[in-house]
């Protein structure tokens, strides 16, 4: 029998572990590691929160800017409306007649044979007119009805 002799009540001698030999330093390291983790987390959270605040501020700032610009646009619209009313005032026949009298201009109504229609066509209208006249080789005598058909005033 392979029985080890000796008193079984004698306490076994404990072999000191490696950790206990350098224990203080390790604990400190782990503490710093934990603090580092927490700090990192706090920083991360803070950064996110800061970004959120910053973005929110910028959105609000942009909204405020939009509101200001809208107000300025409304103001400009009102100025335009004012200028339009002045233009309307000064293009009425009574006003023009007043000015003719004021400056003694020798103006009179034209007679029919002294009038000539000048029309400004868009490129598309011009192309349609050209197509019409070259295709049918017509003389331009009275094309008012034809122009109406083609949607040209």
């Amino acid at each position: 029998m392979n029985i080890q002799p000796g008193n079984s009540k004698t306490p076994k001698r404990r072999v000191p572990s490696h950790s206990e030999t350098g224990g203080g330093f390790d604990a400190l390291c782990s503490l710093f590691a934990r603090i580092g983790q927490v700090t990192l987390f706090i920083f991360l959270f803070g950064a996110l929160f800061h970004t959120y605040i910053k973005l929110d501020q910028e959105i609000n700032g942009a909204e405020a800017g939009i509101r200001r610009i809208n107000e300025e646009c409304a103001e400009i619209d009102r100025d335009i409306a004012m200028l339009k009313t002045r233009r309307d005032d000064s293009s009425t026949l009574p006003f023009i007649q007043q000015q003719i009298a004021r400056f003694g201009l020798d103006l009179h109504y034209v007679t029919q044979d002294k009038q000539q229609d000048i029309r400004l066509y868009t490129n598309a209208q011009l192309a349609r007119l050209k197509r019409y006249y070259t295709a049918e080789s017509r003389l331009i005598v009275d094309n008012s009805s034809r122009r109406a058909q083609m949607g040209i005033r």
Partner: protein
Amino acid sequence: MNQALRQVRSRIWCLVVLCLLFAGALVYRFYVVQILRHEELLAKAQSSYTSSRSQQKERGKILDVNGNTLVGNMPRITVTCSPYSVVEEPFLHLEKSLKAGVRERLPLLRESRRRRVAAIVAECFDLDENKVYADLEPWRERRSENGSVSRVKRHYIMIEKYAAKEMVEVFRQKMREADLHLGGFNFENIYIRHYPHGRMLSNIIGLAGLGGLESSESEFLEAQSSSETIQRSGKDQVLEYGDNHINQAGHDGDDIYLTIHEMIQAILEEELDRAQAEHEPWRIYAVVIDPSNGNILAISQRPNFDPVDRSTIRQDNFGNALAGNAYEPGSVMKPFFVAKALDMGVITQDTIIDCGNTGEWFGLKDPRGYGEQNPGYILKKSSNIGMGKLSLMMGADMVAQTLRDFRFGQRAMPIFSGESRGMLPRTPMRDLTTTRAAIGYAELVTVLQLARAYSALACGGVMPELRLLDRRRDGENGKMIEYPYPAEKQLFNNPGTAQTVTEMLISVTAPDGTGRRARIAGYDVAGKTGTAQIVQNGRFSDWYRASFCGFVPARNPRVLMAITIEGLPYSKPHGGGNVAAPVFQRVMSRVLRYLNVPPDYPEQLNRGR
């Protein structure tokens, strides 16, 4: 020892209980405030720092067919003020902090401020300084029912209702220079209606809410104001980072384009002014239309009012009498009966009708006996006896049918509220009524109905519906919406009828016709005069109504005009040929030049120059 320990313990317990009670009370209060009364208190808090503001948008404009503004909008600023905020509030925080000796001088400072503000307001807005000073009184007395008098703050006075932007800018500048802040003043941006042409078309356009197109088309003209909720600080400044949001996006009203030509309208207005000054009638109604499509090119009446100066509005000049007043038109009705008789084969253009030699026949009178004449001559000389006999040849039913065919008794322009349908003689007609109907004395018509009916004669029997609204620009999306042309109706069985009547109407303006004063050099004019006695108190009076309806160029009409001048005394020129035809001539000759209508006889134009 034990005794002392017990005492301490009991005190600690008391303290703990008190703390718990306090904490419980706090929790309960928190529960009440945050949970039970949450909605109510939140609303209360929000109402104190939240307000809504709206921005007025432009009411739709009314423009002519070429886009010239007839009625626009002018931006203005309404300046109001709270006298209490201007005079009292700046000194409120000083009252407690100032030393006793200085505090007594506060009323003097208030007076000085009130005086300075009044001086600037009066100078900038052209007001009486003393009146402004009196208006700036910050307190007013209020008597209660039991007779006791208390002082209340005055928070609202109107400084200037429609101030120009420049005035307000100067005011702000002067207040800044005088080191007076603008707290207590309120500046509200508004638009007011602007009438660049003054009286032109005033009766047709009317005033917003008071009739005319402004009322009938208000559904489209009205703008939708925008509204937004804003949060304000204690100093009444908008919190830029507050929960500000737009509740309703506004948009401008729709712009309405009429068929009116601004220039033709201006010509008509000028000539009506001249006729008004020349003849001083009670009323003038006139309308110029394009007979080919019924588009109204110009329309006017006298008397009219100035929409800018509302003191000119009277009962007799405000409404649209042109559409609302139906009257006995007289001889301008004759061509319709001749046309119908020709079309139905009752007569031909060579049929001879005996107009007698005495100039009198059963109450109908002619200036002299015309003898036996054809229908063309009867129209040329406007023979009442000839027409009376022609009507008897047609018969009462056909005469009544003629009036219905030419759509008398039916509204010509339904967009005019209060438009008269006119009145037709009751059927079956007796012979006397039949003869009177044929000379325009038994029916009531409006000038619009006359213009519509004449356009059928001008355009080969095709009668268009009158149009005043041409198109509309949607204020929300800018889309242009065309108003449709109503279906037209052919009145004559025989296509040559209208041409025959037109030739007869050209003879009316011949040198020996009743309408010779309507002649226009270079053009054939087709038209008919009308002179009717006005009925007053059930009897024919010495007052007359002169009319002229005609179209030019007669064989290819571009413009048609109907004019009625009402209230001409017998002692002065009162006939359609003397009074209405010259107005027609003046208007039409200018309109033809403006429209550049090629003349029928160019050599006449050159000769006349």
